[in-house]
């Protein structure tokens, strides 16, 4: 299972049903666990992105070929959640099962709590951006969801603060509450699982999990909650981890007996940028956080440089529809608020044109959770939640999809405007612009179908990758075309050369025959045939002299002159052959000589 390549056969054969479940949670196109599962009218499920790409080419279900189109597909929210959560717990479940299937008599000592570097918790294919994002996911979510996945841990110690921000309080053993700010989280060790008899112990440290991690969901649950991704890259950009570290131990009463989670939390209190509003730079008009204005001006705009961190014009951000703004700000405070006012919650973008403002959490407005996800967990362990078990909340408005465009009906200018509206690059010819728009529409719309949508910044980054790939592809194609051209040209030259050679031989032969005929008037006309570059002539009486040879060679030369030097050799050979023939003829005048001019040679390979 290197590089997160997983498939149903990973499951021990004893657990055939798990193989089945695994395979049914996979997209038949990419064979990964479903991402943003959608269902077609024929009931076949796919990743939104995969099926969208397919439907761009063909209007039928890949599995059953029933005619369909993107307008007929529907989100399969429950399935998507199942696939996501299955992915979250997959490697842990697998490890635990493996352990159970092959019990080892050796009891491994429980290693002391160790600090696992954050990097080791992520796996390689994650971009640095993703790493930052994931590792900065709120602690409460991580702890609880992972413990839940791992050991069905009792949730009693994780309770909801009853303030309306859905903030969380983690109770320590000593009951001192820890309020989480949704910021930099260091997980020191994974939970320690003990099987019932304490026989097979397995330390499921984050690093060991991630080594077998499924690419999308490991380390556990960093992106679990729906759909809020606190894009806290701002934090990473702005601050070193704050000193305040708190160890929170969760004692669990679970099916599996015990679980320990040690967690250190870095508060963001020291973060220099707290919920800044974006303002338009007076020079470059890009949206930048207010406190950053002077730095931005000094380092970039006044220095005549482009600030790589802020590339989206302020005017553009503020004109985005609410759904897009939501992506710029905080992914899916789904239960409540898509913030329509850009100024209210945009924070410092983590990276160029990507997370233009991401996490709205500040000490005063803590990260929000989807309460819908938490409450059932709390109820499962019998702890009375401090909020009603289930608070129905209005469904978040479906984000607007980017409509498909008929690119042939748009001119360059219109297309460029469409791209600009989406905050995309506008360079390139119409083909490139159309492809760019189509690509972004695909990933954007697929992201809208996800129960764990990525922030817009991630999509923008994916577009950067796409741009580079496109450029590279163009280069490759161009090179291939050039090589093909050259090959064709070479072939034409070879053909011309062969033709010239044939002509030269024929001419030479004709000249020689003419000469032979002149020398012996009574002779029958020379037969001169050519086949496949070989010409044969049969002078019935060869009686030549130097003049005739000169005529013959002159004729051949005249014809071949336009093919220049490369045929000089050939001509010389023809002439030599003629000369030799004539000498022979002189020596033996009564004998019919069959002379063969130059044997076929491969054409000059120039």
């Amino acid at each position, binding site marked *: 299972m290197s590089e997160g390549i997983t498939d149903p056969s990973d499951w021990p054969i004893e657990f055939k049903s798990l193989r089945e479940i695994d395979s049914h949670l996979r997209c038949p196109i990419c*064979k990964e666990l479903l991402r943003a599962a959608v269902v077609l009218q024929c009931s076949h499920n796919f990743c939104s992105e995969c099926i969208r790409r397919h439907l761009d080419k063909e209007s039928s279900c890949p599995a059953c070929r029933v005619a369909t189109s993107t307008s007929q597909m529907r989100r399969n929210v429950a399935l998507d959640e199942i696939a996501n959560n299955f992915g979250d717990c997959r490697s842990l479940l697998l490890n635990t099962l493996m352990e159970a299937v092959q019990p080892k008599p050796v009891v491994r000592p429980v290693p002391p709590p160790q600090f696992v570097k954050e990097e080791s918790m992520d796996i390689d294919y994650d971009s640095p951006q993703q790493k930052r994002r994931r590792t900065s996911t709120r602690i409460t979510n991580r702890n609880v969801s992972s413990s839940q996945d791992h050991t069905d841990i009792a949730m009693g110690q994780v309770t909801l603060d009853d303030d309306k921000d859905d903030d969380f309080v983690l109770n320590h053993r000593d009951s001192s509450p820890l309020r989480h700010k949704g910021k930099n989280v260091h997980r020191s060790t994974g939970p320690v699982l003990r099987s019932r008899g304490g026989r097979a112990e397995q330390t499921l440290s984050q690093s060991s999990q991630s080594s077998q991690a499924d690419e999308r969901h490991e380390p556990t649950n960093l992106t679990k909650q729906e759909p809020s991704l606190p894009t806290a890259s701002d934090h990473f950009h702005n601050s070193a981890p704050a000193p305040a570290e708190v160890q929170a131990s969760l004692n669990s009463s679970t099916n599996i007996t015990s679980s320990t989670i040690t967690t250190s939390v870095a508060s963001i209190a020291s973060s220099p940028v707290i919920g800044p509003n974006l303002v338009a730079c007076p020079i470059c008009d890009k949206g930048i956080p207010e406190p950053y204005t002077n730095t931005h001006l000094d380092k970039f705009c006044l220095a005549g440089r482009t600030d790589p961190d802020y590339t989206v014009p302020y005017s553009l951000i503020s004109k985005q529809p609410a759904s897009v703004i939501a992506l710029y700000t905080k992914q899916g405070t789904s239960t409540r608020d898509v913030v329509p006012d850009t100024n209210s919650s945009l924070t410092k973008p983590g990276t160029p044109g990507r997370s233009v403002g991401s996490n709205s959490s500040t000490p005063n407005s803590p990260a929000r959770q989807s309460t819908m996800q938490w409450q059932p967990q709390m109820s499962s362990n019998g702890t009375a939640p401090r909020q009603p078990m289930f608070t129905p909340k209005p469904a978040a408005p479906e984000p607007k999809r980017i409509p498909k465009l008929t690119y042939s009906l748009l001119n360059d200018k219109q297309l460029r405007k469409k791209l600009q509206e989406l905050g995309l690059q506008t360079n390139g010819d119409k083909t490139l612009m159309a492809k760019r728009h189509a690509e972004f529409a695909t990933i954007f719309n697929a992201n809208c179908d996800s129960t764990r949508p990525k922030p817009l910044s991630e999509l923008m980054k994916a577009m950067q990758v796409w741009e580079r790939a496109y450029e590279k592809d163009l280069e490759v194609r161009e090179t291939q075309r050039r090589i093909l051209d050259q090959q064709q040209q070479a072939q034409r030259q070879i053909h011309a050369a062969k033709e010239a050679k044939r002509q030269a031989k024929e001419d030479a032969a004709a000249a020689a025959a003419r000469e032979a005929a002149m020398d012996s008037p009574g002779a029958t006309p020379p037969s001169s045939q050519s086949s496949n570059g070989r010409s044969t002539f049969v002078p019935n009486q060869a009686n030549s002299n130097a003049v005739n040879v000169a005529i013959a060679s002159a004729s051949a030369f005249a014809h071949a002159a336009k093919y220049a030097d490369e045929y000089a050799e050939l001509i010389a050979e023809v002439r030599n052959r003629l000369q030799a023939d004539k000498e022979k003829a002189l020596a033996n005048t009564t004998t019919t000589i069959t002379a063969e001019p130059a044997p076929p040679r491969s054409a000059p390979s120039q």
Partner: protein
Amino acid sequence: MAKPMFARRLSKELKDLAMNAPAGVNIIDANDFKVWKLGLAGAPGTLYDGEKFQLEFNFGPNYPLESPQVLFVGDNIPVHPHIYSNGHICLDVLYNHWSPVQTVASICLSLQSMLSSCTSKEPPPDNATYVKTARANPKHTAWAFHDDTV
């Protein structure tokens, strides 16, 4: 850097082929995600019983949204009404009936069944002309799929 989709999918397919390839199918060469060579053995009890063939798969970066290029290679090209002597295969699922849910294994199975259902070992009627004019990539051929019976 994330592995592109085609590479990830091919990794899974390779693993699957290595662990439980369809009967008569074996991996000869699969060192990258561009070209794979697979062995295909004629099924017992068919006209191709005991014969061994080689298949070449060429994958593009859009696999599996686009079909791979598949052809028979090597000394022994099956004599079959839908297989040209240059190795090109007249099989709709390789061209206009390709679907991204298909796999290398499923293609091998389709070819097995195509061979197994053959009743007389004859080359395609237009073999001579086709082989002379065809381009190297069979996907560039404008295929007309006339019958599904053989």
